[in-house]
């Protein structure tokens, strides 16, 4: 059977002495915590932005809905105003 070169290389690699234990570089903990807090701040800003955007969308929808609901009465009001104006003109033209 053909020898498996990768397995032999991996076996040799495993015998390599362990790398020296990692000593934490100065300030890494501070940077990690600052990163965490910055993200938290971003998240809070994001949630406010989301809330404001939702409120804007909701108010726009309510406006559109109220226009649709009241469209008929607005039209009627316009017609009534026109009729009143017309009758006023006619009355003023009467001898």
């Amino acid at each position, binding site marked *: 059977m053909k020898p498996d070169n*990768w397995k032999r*290389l991996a076996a040799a690699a495993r015998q390599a002495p362990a*790398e020296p234990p990692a000593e934490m570089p100065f300030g890494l*903990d501070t*940077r*990690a915590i600052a990163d965490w807090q910055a*993200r938290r701040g971003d998240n809070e800003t994001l949630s406010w932005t989301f809330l404001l955007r939702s409120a804007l969308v909701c108010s726009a929808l309510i406006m559109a809905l109220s226009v649709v609901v009241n469209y008929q009465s607005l039209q009627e009001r316009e017609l009534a105003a026109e009729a009143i104006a017309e009758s006023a003109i006619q009355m003023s033209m009467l001898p």
Partner: protein
Amino acid sequence: MAEAGLDMAACLERVRQRDEEAARSLVRELYPLVMKIVRSHLPRRIDEEDLAQTIFGKMFAHIDQYSGTVPFEHWVSRVAVNTCFNALRSERCRPELRMADLNEEEADVLENVVSTDKAPDPAERLAARDLARKMLEMLSPKDRLILSMLDLEERSVAEVRQLTGWNASVIKVRAFRARIKLRKQFAKMMKQEEI
């Protein structure tokens, strides 16, 4: 794994309440574990310190999702492995390894591995580790991660599955195919040596 004196459960509770000192202790406690994983799966051109910081950032960002069903170190290991995997995936190209790219020690190791059965001496073992890592760099990120854990760290398929969340049969099939690729690469490099 846990440093004597640090009560992990209490520390986590304090971190959840945004206690900075507890967060600092947690980073100090987990740094060796995270660094070991980072060093095993470090992409070229990425600084190990930067990657470790990213891992800690993710750990804190998702700490509320830790349910406590597994030891916290296992959960962090999984976060670290996934972060390394994403970093490996972001590498645009995977270099082709040629004989000319190897230093003298690595070329000697390669020749010994292929032609003799003799056990490597201590200096060769370090070169063997470097060569093995270089060869793994040619594989896809998933294959690299799997083979590195299975063959260099001697982890079991179950452990790899636990750390990556990938299916056991996917791990086995990928490892099998990746080893074939590496065997072909060996043959190619030895051909270059003959020329």
